């Protein structure tokens, strides 16, 4: 057993209102630069829909992620190392920018410089790739709220095989939002796809990053990620990706997308996992067992033997304590209401989702408090959002897993209704949700009323251990020409000060971090 810590995220899809605040604030901070106009580290998709880039989930086409070969060994779907070297001059699996969208701006100066006239001046769209006038035909979120769905939604890869069940007629439509960031996977295929060894996973917190000085622009990570969450900066010729806002995480602050989330749908917390068992879990033969396999890699932070090993592996005591309060561990492992996005890609993703329940409840509840599990449970199967559709997204097609999670959530609602309105602790409802009443109430608090400190349980990095090394030359990988900056040494703010967001504080103190040396790889993580 080798214990490592990972900052994970859970998003409660029931509460996402599709406002895109997360996307916009993320873009302002990270991808507001030449070459990244088309890049959204955080984007919010409407499901059913094509997504961004279009049909990214179709990995028959893009060849992202892992597969098992005939002998059951884990292999990059796009092919092995030799194949990569032979196709290095042209990557057969790379999306083009039109699969995302052609970024544009407007010729605003026609508004500002317009002389006094009868008619209002108009700003027309202008391509950010060529500077020429263009017709906007697709965007990062073109099919928002089912716009154009009659034409496009049926091409959603998750609807494959469900055409009979899903009638996209007006009366029977359904939709929900799917906010997406990089999954900071336990078994990241982007890292494995990078021939230069520029991509790496951080041992301390599991964040997956691109070393901007080692990246040589071979662009295999872009196609290798099954979630299409590595992007090619066409201005610098280097790959970039979501950083999980590590300069903030290191200060114990939530990511920008979490901090600004209007629906308060996001949770951040630590997970302890056994790094020695990652590969084994990702090699689980039956796709439908991948969820259990991944759960079995997580370690119980309350278990004294785990704690002992964690300490031996250099995890600080306060981190072990934070792991025990992790909302992510609770939602994913203790209550099993959060599920991984497309576990069948075998990257062991670390951003999990609580499936949406609202349409059922809304339909049934009408006017009051009779959300009775006896009515709700059958309704889950008849839900407008077909179970099979959710299962294709969150459970490798295993509808039972989604049904269990939804039953728990529905049971929780029924139980809490009775408690709030009638003042009774309904043991039967609790039993139906197969949880103790105290557990149900804890889950309810976390999902419904949790405050900032309960949703974001992120320990500060132990940067004092870095100060010793800070005199050495090097770079943190953000402070490049045209990069977002932020290579200052980390000050430790007083507890409770949350404003210390440092991205604008470039080169503070003149310290530069050491280039991160490759410290090794998993035993058994060979080819």
């Amino acid at each position, binding site marked *: 057993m080798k214990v490592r810590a990972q900052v994970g995220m859970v998003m409660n899809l029931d509460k996402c209102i599709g406002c895109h605040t997360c996307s916009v604030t993320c873009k302002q901070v990270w991808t507001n630069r030449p070459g990244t106009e088309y890049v959204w580290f955080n984007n919010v998709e409407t499901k059913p829909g094509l997504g961004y880039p279009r049909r990214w989930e179709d990995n028959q086409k893009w060849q992202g992620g892992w597969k098992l070969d005939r002998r059951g060994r884990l292999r990059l779907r796009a092919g092995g190392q030799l194949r990569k070297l032979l196709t290095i001059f042209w990557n*057969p699996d790379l999306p083009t920018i039109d699969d995302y969208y052609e970024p544009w701006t407007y010729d605003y100066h026609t508004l500002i410089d317009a002389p006094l006239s009868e008619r209002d001046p108009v700003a027309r769209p202008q391509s950010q790739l*060529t500077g020429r006038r263009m017709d906007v035909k697709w965007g990062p979120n073109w099919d928002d709220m089912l716009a154009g769905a009659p034409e496009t939604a049926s091409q959603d890869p998750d609807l494959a095989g469900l055409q009979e069940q899903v009638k996209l007629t007006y009366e029977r439509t359904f939709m929900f939002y799917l906010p997406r960031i990089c999954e900071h996977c336990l078994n990241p295929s982007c890292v494995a796809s990078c021939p230069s*060894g520029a991509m790496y996973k951080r041992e301390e917190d599991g964040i997956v990053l691109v070393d901007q000085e*080692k990246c040589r622009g071979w*662009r295999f990570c872009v196609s290798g990620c099954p979630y299409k969450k590595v992007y090619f900066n066409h201005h610098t010729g280097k790959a970039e990706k979501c950083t999980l806002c590590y300069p903030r995480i290191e200060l114990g602050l939530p990511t920008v997308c979490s901090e600004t989330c209007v629906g308060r749908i996001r949770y951040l917390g630590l997970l302890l996992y056994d790094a020695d068992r990652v590969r084994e879990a990702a090699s689980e033969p039956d796709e439908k067992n991948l969820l259990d396999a991944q759960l079995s890699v997580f370690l119980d932070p309350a278990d004294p033997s785990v704690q002992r090993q964690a300490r031996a592996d250099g995890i*600080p005591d306060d981190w072990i304590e934070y792991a025990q309060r992790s909302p992510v561990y609770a939602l994913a492992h203790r209550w099993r209401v959060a599920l991984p996005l497309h576990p069948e890609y075998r990257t062991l993703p670390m951003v999990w989702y609580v499936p949406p329940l609202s349409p059922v409840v809304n339909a049934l509840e009408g006017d009051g408090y009779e959300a009775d599990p006896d009515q709700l449970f059958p309704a889950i199967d008849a839900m407008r959002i077909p179970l099979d559709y959710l299962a294709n997204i969150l459970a490798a097609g295993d509808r039972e897993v989604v049904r269990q999670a939804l039953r728990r959530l529905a049971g929780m609602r029924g139980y809490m209704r009775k408690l709030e309105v009638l003042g009774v602790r309904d043991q039967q409802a609790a039993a139906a949700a197969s949880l103790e009443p105290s557990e149900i109430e804890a889950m309810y608090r976390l999902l419904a009323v949790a405050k900032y400190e309960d949703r974001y349980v992120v320990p500060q990095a132990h940067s004092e*251990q870095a100060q010793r*090394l800070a005199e050495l030359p090097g770079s943190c990988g953000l402070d490049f020409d045209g990069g977002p900056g932020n290579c200052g040494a980390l000050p430790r703010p007083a507890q409770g000060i949350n404003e210390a967001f440092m991205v604008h504080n470039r080169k503070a103190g003149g310290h530069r971090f050491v280039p991160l040396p490759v410290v090794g790889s998993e035993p058994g993580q060979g080819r």
Partner: protein
Amino acid sequence: MTLWEALLFVALPYASITLFVAGHIWRYRHDKFGWTSRSTQLLERRWLAWGSNLFHYGALAAIGGHVVGLLIPEQLTHAVGISEGAYHLFAAAAGTVAGLACVAGFVILVGRRAYFPRIRRTTTWTDVMVYLVLAGIIVLGLIETIGFNTLGSGYNYRPTIGVWFRSLLWLHPEPQLIAGAPLVYQLHATLPWILYAVWPFSRLVHAWSLPWQYVGRPNILYRRRYGLARR
């Protein structure tokens, strides 16, 4: 030895080698961030499929042929039993295939750069310089391979240009050897020194980064940010 010969066949090569070496050291130390293939596949993929593959495979094969032709003395190939005729036949055939692939690829790449506004916007002045010099080298090389060796009676450059090239490496330059070669050969042997001089300052540095270390490497790489105590 005329002044021109001294300049073109002795001074230029040494100046170029100096720039080449010093330039790479400088670039590696000061601009690792700029060290990339500057791929444009994101912006256009169909032309690139043909252009990049034909050009690179053609160019690498041609470079391989040059290494054999220039660095390995004629006596050595004779000693292992390859006659001048056989060598010539092989070099002309392989050289023609590689050269044609390289030219076709190059034409597609340059055409693509000119035709697509998206790509044109990514082109720098250094790129233009590199394309001009490369175009010169490739065209001259083709005239030699196809014009002289495949269609014509052939010119055996190995006892003249080959020896001159090695004489530069031994620091005993013998420019008179190349002075007698046909003009096309002289030009083709001179232009590359200009390419080497711009090489470290251009996108061509990507050629040194062929990631051969990838083969046999473990899949997942980890790095540690803080020097935590570990077992």
